[in-house]
């Protein structure tokens, strides 16, 4: 289908882009467009104006910053996936981003766009949540930081305000001893996750010292599997880990759609969390 009509502007700076967005509540920021354009084509969204931020150099690139990696909002999935800085500093991001959609979409789709889209079925929100990423929002007033736990508000809704754009994301580096895995269950190669699990695990003497687990598509926002994280603390690989991972779906409200009912999603979350935790712990 052909999108409904909209105006188009291509501002030359972040400040100008924020001004455009602040002055019109129905305007939308356009980066790579790989989530937005399908929405427009299916007429699920009717923005009055697209503010094309796709060429703003200030929002590009991946930067090593000591205790964290700064990923510019406009870094493409392909760029993030191949970045030595990301692979060394936050391998879970590299693992997950390589599973986003397909190569052609990864060439155009951006890291920031996919997070700002706040789709709970997207792979990156759960990863950002598990890693306690910090979102940097830019507006005419300057920048503010939003912790990942406060960024995802509801289905396709973030805590970005009118006139704000996501400028970049800071991913804290986890020290030595951590292992990572992203486990995605989907029907076809480039489909969204029916359920996905992002796991970061620190091992100590054959047991799990600490685990962080983010769940994809288990509610209107990405969620942390807090109960399983607590149960995994000190758990030994084997039965104890298996029992702890059976808590993965506790407190979640997974959606029903043509792919899966909530009870099936809960079952998947438990099984996939087990796989993700074992893989992250280096135990296959």
């Amino acid at each position: 289908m052909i999108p409904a009509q909209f105006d188009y502007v291509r501002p030359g700076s972040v400040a100008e882009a924020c001004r455009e967005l602040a002055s019109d509540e129905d305007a939308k920021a356009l980066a790579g467009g790989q989530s937005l354009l399908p929405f427009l084509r299916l007429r699920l969204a009717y923005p009055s104006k697209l503010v094309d931020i796709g060429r703003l150099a200030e929002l590009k690139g991946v930067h090593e910053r000591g205790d964290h990696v700064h990923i510019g909002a406009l870094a493409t999935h392909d760029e993030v996936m191949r970045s030595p800085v990301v692979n060394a500093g936050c391998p879970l991001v590299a693992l997950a981003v390589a599973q986003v959609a397909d190569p052609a979409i990864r060439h155009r789709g951006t890291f920031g766009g996919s997070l700002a889209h706040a789709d709970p079925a997207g792979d990156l929100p759960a990863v950002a949540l598990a890693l306690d990423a910090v979102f940097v929002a830019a507006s005419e007033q300057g920048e503010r930081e939003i912790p990942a736990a406060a960024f995802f508000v509801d289905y396709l809704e973030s805590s970005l305000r009118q006139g704000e754009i996501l400028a970049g994301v800071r991913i804290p580096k986890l020290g030595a001893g951590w292992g990572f895995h992203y486990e995605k269950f989907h029907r076809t190669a480039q489909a969204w996750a029916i359920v996905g699990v992002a796991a970061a695990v620190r091992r100590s003497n054959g047991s799990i010292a600490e685990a962080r687990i983010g769940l994809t598509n288990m509610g209107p926002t990405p969620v942390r599997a807090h109960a399983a994280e607590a149960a995994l603390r000190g758990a030994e690989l084997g039965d104890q880990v298996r029992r702890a991972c059976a808590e993965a779906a506790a407190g979640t409200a997974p959606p029903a759609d043509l792919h899966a009912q909530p009870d099936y999603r809960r079952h998947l979350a438990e099984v996939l969390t087990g796989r993700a935790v074992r893989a992250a712990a280096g135990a296959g």
Partner: protein
Amino acid sequence: MPRITITVDGIKYEEDVEPRLLLVHLLRERLGRTGTPVGCDTSNCGACTVMLDGKSAKSCSVLAVQADGCDVVTIEGLGTNGTNGSMHPMQRAFHEEHALQCGYCTPGMVMAAIDLLRNDPEPSEETIRQGLEGNLCRCTGYCNIVRAVRRGAQEMGRAVNTP
């Protein structure tokens, strides 16, 4: 209406475009590049894949205004003068290996195949299958497609190595 400059298959065009015009519609309806088909409405199928500044992109998921100043290569820009005798090695490999049945997905498959060789000029079967994951063949002729990509890769390697 925004005016854009775009190079398609080596020819430079200046066009006034409505902001909502998709790149694939610019290519097909304004610039006559009907070799690039529209397959789906969901960015799933990859039939409309073109090279946008040297990397594969689904032209149904790019606005024409976003491609302002860019270089686009379609399936029609691969051969040296558009006749059978001058097909691109990857096109020839698809022909030789019978890698098409209805042919609808073929332009996108060929573009995605050439793209995956940028990162790996001698791809394994697994790499080829991964590289083509965004392109659907509803005749499900994947085995011959994978064979064709291997053959095309060999031919392209040879072409590069031949003085």
